[in-house]
């Protein structure tokens, strides 16, 4: 055996290097998890204390002195705005995903769309917020003021590329054989898509959409200058609307210990909401037959 191609016998040095590097890689993995543990630990330690029935059922009072209230308007506002954003982003995202898979596997137009969807995933969320601020808020749509629906549109812009990409991935997994079988039976193209492809891919589509929803629920920057912040609960999306991330962001800078504790409690609530949504998403994906 040529000396230049054979590996030397397994000396202690090589063994030691191997053990050391493997240990290093394992250690690095543990180091990566340390922040996660610390974040969860402090969220529970400082946030659980804020939780109470009143915490979830009273609005922030806006008092300077005295009782500061809870986060009811923030929690409901987040749910409302994210729901509206999902209603906008999910149909459009699924639609574009369907286009890319059913009609656009080749072709310049589809490739361009695919490329720009990729591009959109990388745009910082604050740029979306700024864009909506100038077009809708300062531009004076529906009265030149901040409104919940404008925040929803900013969130929808954020969710759209994520939903589209995940939809495309899932729809590609649907076997072409299914489509061809349906087509061979004389089913019109649109029916094949709606009645065969979509139901098959539905669990995966829902997973992808819920992950986008979880992401949108945690975003602050797009809401800062579109829906801003308000104390009272409102169900009118045409008014200013409170939201958990913006409430936390506002309370964080305060010297008032009550407000800081409320921020921790709200942060814990937000993380729980996101984890719950992610959990439901993963459970939905288990049902996928793809």
């Amino acid at each position, binding site marked *: 055996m040529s000396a230049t191609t054979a590996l030397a016998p397994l000396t202690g040095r090589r063994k030691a290097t191997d053990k050391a590097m493997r240990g290093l890689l394992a250690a690095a993995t543990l180091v990566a998890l340390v922040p996660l543990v610390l974040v969860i630990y402090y969220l529970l330690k400082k946030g659980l204390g804020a939780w109470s029935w009143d915490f979830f*059922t*009273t*609005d922030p*009072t*806006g*008092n*300077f*002195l*005295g*009782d500061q*209230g809870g986060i*009811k308007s923030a*929690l*409901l506002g987040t*749910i409302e705005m994210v*729901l509206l954003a999902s209603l906008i982003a999910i149909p459009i995202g699924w639609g574009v995903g369907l286009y890319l898979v059913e009609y656009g596997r080749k072709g310049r137009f589809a490739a361009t769309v695919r490329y720009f969807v990729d591009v959109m995933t990388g745009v910082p969320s604050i740029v979306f917020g700024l864009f909506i601020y100038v077009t809708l*808020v*300062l531009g*004076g749509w529906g009265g*030149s*003021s*901040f409104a919940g629906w404008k925040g929803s549109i900013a969130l929808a812009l954020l969710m759209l590329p994520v939903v589209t990409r995940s939809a495309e991935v899932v729809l590609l997994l649907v076997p072409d054989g299914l489509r061809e079988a349906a087509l061979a039976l004389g089913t019109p193209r649109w029916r094949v898509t709606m009645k065969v492809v979509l139901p098959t891919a*539905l*669990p995966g589509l*829902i997973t992808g959409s*819920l992950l986008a929803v979880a992401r949108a629920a945690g975003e602050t920057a797009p809401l800062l200058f579109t829906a*801003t*912040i*308000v*104390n*009272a*609960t409102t*169900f009118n999306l045409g*008014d*200013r609307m409170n939201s958990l991330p913006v409430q936390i962001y506002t309370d964080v*800078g*305060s*010297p*008032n210990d009550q407000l800081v504790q409320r921020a921790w409690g709200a942060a814990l609530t937000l993380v729980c909401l996101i984890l719950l949504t992610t959990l*439901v998403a993963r*459970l*939905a994906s*288990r*049902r996928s037959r793809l």
Partner: protein
Amino acid sequence: MNPRIVPATLAALALASGAAACGSSNDDNSSASTGSAAASTGSDSGSGVKATLNGAGSTFAAPIYQQVGADLKSQGLTINYQGVGSGAGVSQFAAGTVDFAGSDPALSDDDRATIKKGDAVQIPFALGAITASYNLSGVKSGLKLDGETLANIYLGKVKAWNDPAIKALNPDVDLPSTKITVVHRSDSSGTTKGFTQFLANYSTAWKNGPGVDKDIKWPTGTGAKGNDGVAAAVKQTDGAIGYVEQAYALQNGFTFADVKNKAGKFVAPTLESTSAAAEGIEVPEDLGVSTIDAPGDGAYPIVSQTFAITYKDACKAGISADKAKGLKFFFNYLVNEGQDTIKKLSYAPIPDSLKAKDQAAIDAMQCNGAAIS
């Protein structure tokens, strides 16, 4: 598990939370502050006012707006006020995204030029002390500081607490060798303008250097957003010094300095010394007063006024008639019943001479040329 269970669960959650919220929406008023009793004796227009007013601006006066807002909720008037700094407040008011602005400095000619929708009216309704608060373990409230030393601290020339300049003013105090962490505002702030005006009066280095403005180039230090941000930064950093309005300092149990005033006396910020700053002030035509560096033995030298700003004719500027009515009621309240709330928060009420002129301006507020009832 049926995949349809997911949208069904979400819909059920939405319905449930909607039902719960509708059911408990009456709880909002159960948290009405103890101040609502004081608000019951309102002027006649109280019963007919139901509006939501959006305002933004000075964090210096934010405690007042917040507290008054909580008090007025029971009377049907909802005030949404965001403390974003005087500069941002005027800017948003001019852009039309808020109905009124809170600003500590009076509107300058430049400001008025940017307000294109109509003529603005500014109502000074409170005076507050800007404290020089510090976080220094072992040192109690009442450390003596003067304009020049404060300027040198903020210029970065005085770097540690046991610097000879501070020692000279406080020979009896045991000063630690901690480094001074300077905290200032990162946003456009009326409090900054008042504070820098005071510094410029006593330090030529400051006057020719950073100067006087709502937003300046700070030679050193950490920036924080809002009076509350500066208070939080001072609270969290040992050895820090920051300029915060007195309500924030008291709320957090800060220690603050006795500052040397124009008459040469070291004065602590109290209700009396703050009120004393208003004695004998000149009131110009547009009510744009300034109380910084007031003369008078007992006057605290860094007292700032604060204005509530809206349009003389709100309806002409595009604000609805209901809101215009609400604005007049609100401003009226600030200048009359609100003065009690102001005192509770450790701000000083405006002197009677100024109050009369304010009242005249408020009475002159119109909607499309007609007086608001």
